[in-house]
């Protein structure tokens, strides 16, 4: 179990967060750039000082600001950190990098070979890091951490910048290794889909505050606040009726279907102000009740300026203070 209840000072704000990740559990920290996600991981790894709080791993206190103060040094924490830069040691071969964290008494040749095969880098053991592709370098970095015997995996957007397929396969590798070894794993993610694919639980962080933690589908479909909704991709907020200070429905572009289906959610009708190609379908800007709503649809159903009617499927609702509220009794076409 990885436990972190910490306050960490940053230049413009203080990161205050409480994370508890069970063995074998995977948590994704999701939030905008500069929210304090990486700072939180670095505090757990012991790379930045903690103003107050406690970090423990497997019952072992790594950091505690309460008496007796504890700050286990980085090299004794047993925390593995993967970053966007694999940071392979350029003067060592792939095998040298993999063996780096093995103790002097640990021969490890067999474990190096078997891990290299599992990671698909068996043929590269004598290569220098400069000759590796981005994906190969990340595999070596992952193998190095696993051979070093870390007790927790921290992943700081390690695969940002790689192509989608490679990212997916590397994330799959991390997931399977973390599950095999029952390691608590925390992923910092900038992209929601990546966080969802990785995690059992999603934690949304904004300006140093944890806004919501829960199963990914719950966080995405039932955001605890309008701010969380904005962060997970809700682009429009439409009032239920004529009252502008009443509750508003969060409209996610991907949770919209064409036509009026009041039994599925909230029907939105208005003028299509713009159409844009979006992947295999189309993206429309729908002006309804003075609010611009973005909808992604499989087909273009009218011309620009024409009338468009769609249904937002089971949208979340938010009160004037931004907190989530139950859906109003009657949702009618706007």
């Amino acid at each position, binding site marked *: 179990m990885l436990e972190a209840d910490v306050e960490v000072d940053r230049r413009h704000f203080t990161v205050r967060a409480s994370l508890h990740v069970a063995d074998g559990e995977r948590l994704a920290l999701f939030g905008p750039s500069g929210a304090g996600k990486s700072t939180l991981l670095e505090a757990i*790894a012991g*790379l930045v000082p903690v103003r107050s709080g406690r970090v423990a791993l497997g019952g072992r206190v790594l950091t505690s600001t309460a008496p007796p103060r504890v700050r286990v*040094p*980085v*090299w*004794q*924490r047993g*925390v*593995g*950190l993967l*970053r966007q*830069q694999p*940071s392979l*040691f*350029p*003067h060592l071969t792939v095998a040298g990098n993999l063996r*780096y*964290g093995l*103790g002097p008494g640990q021969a490890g040749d067999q474990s190096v070979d078997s891990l290299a095969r599992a990671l698909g880098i068996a043929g590269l053991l004598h*290569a*220098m*890091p*400069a*000759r590796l592709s981005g994906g190969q370098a990340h595999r070596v970095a992952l193998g*190095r*951490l696993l051979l*070093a015997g870390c007790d927790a995996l921290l992943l700081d957007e390690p695969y940002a910048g790689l192509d989608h397929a490679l990212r997916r396969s590397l994330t799959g590798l991390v997931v399977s290794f973390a599950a095999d070894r029952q390691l608590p794993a925390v992923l910092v993610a900038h992209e929601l889909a990546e966080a969802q694919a990785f995690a059992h639980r999603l934690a949304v962080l904004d300006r140093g505050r944890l806004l919501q933690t829960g199963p990914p589908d719950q966080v995405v479909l039932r955001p605890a606040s309008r701010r969380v909704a904005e962060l997970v991709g809700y682009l429009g907020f439409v009032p239920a009726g004529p009252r502008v200070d009443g509750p508003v429905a969060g409209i996610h572009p991907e949770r919209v279907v064409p036509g009026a289906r009041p039994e599925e959610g909230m029907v939105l009708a208005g003028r299509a102000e713009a159409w844009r190609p979006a992947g295999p379908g189309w993206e429309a800007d729908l002006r309804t009740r003075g609010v611009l709503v973005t909808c992604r649809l499989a087909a273009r159903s009218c011309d620009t300026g024409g009338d468009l009617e769609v249904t937002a499927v089971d949208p979340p609702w938010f009160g004037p203070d931004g907190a989530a509220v139950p859906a109003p009794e009657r949702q009618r076409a706007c």
Partner: protein
Amino acid sequence: MIWLALLGPVIALLVHLSPAAIRAALTAPGALAPLVTSLESGAVTLAVLLCLGTPLAWLMARGGLPLPRVWEAGLLCSLLLPPLVIGLLLVFMVGPVTPVGQFLATLHLSATNTFFALVVAQVYEAAPYYVLGAQAAFSEIDPRMEQQAELLGDRPWRAARRVTLPLAAPGLAMALAVAWARAMGAFGAVIIVAYHPYGLPLQIWTTLQETGLASALPFALVLLVVALPLPIAAYVWSARARGRRRG
């Protein structure tokens, strides 16, 4: 053309030297004593620079010192001061009547006309070249490499031995080679604070003064032969080390 022009003095030296003149100069009684002095003082100078200059360069590269610009300016200042001026100022700093000189006297050391004084003068002339070169070598290393080594279980000194120093080694070797060449050729400060014991540059100077240009040339060749191989070897080794990393 520029390359040839720069090599011109070396070519001129080789053209104007005959094997007989070299033999005659080097077999004279006591002729090789300054060579031994230069080699010994150069080796001690390098050891001092390695032990004291390397940590300073690392701290400067990692921003581990307060007022980093002041430290850099201090090094640049000693780099830009003419060596003769350094020698003059050293007399005022470590001469026998100064507090430092009196302290040294309690240790039975003197920074005037001794082997110790020769080393002090060489250190002052060579140190900025080594420290600034080493600082550049350390700055090229991503600090996250050292962090990664620590995350993998290395204590800082072990991370330094296994990661920082091997990665900086080509740059450190070049900086050390330049410092060696500067120490071997140190003259301006040396002539003020350590006229005795003679090193090679002073041997060349006094021979030139006493018996003329032709007699001094063989010793100039000796100085080149002593001063240049280490930089050349360091250059070749650094290039190979960088090539190995490129795979």
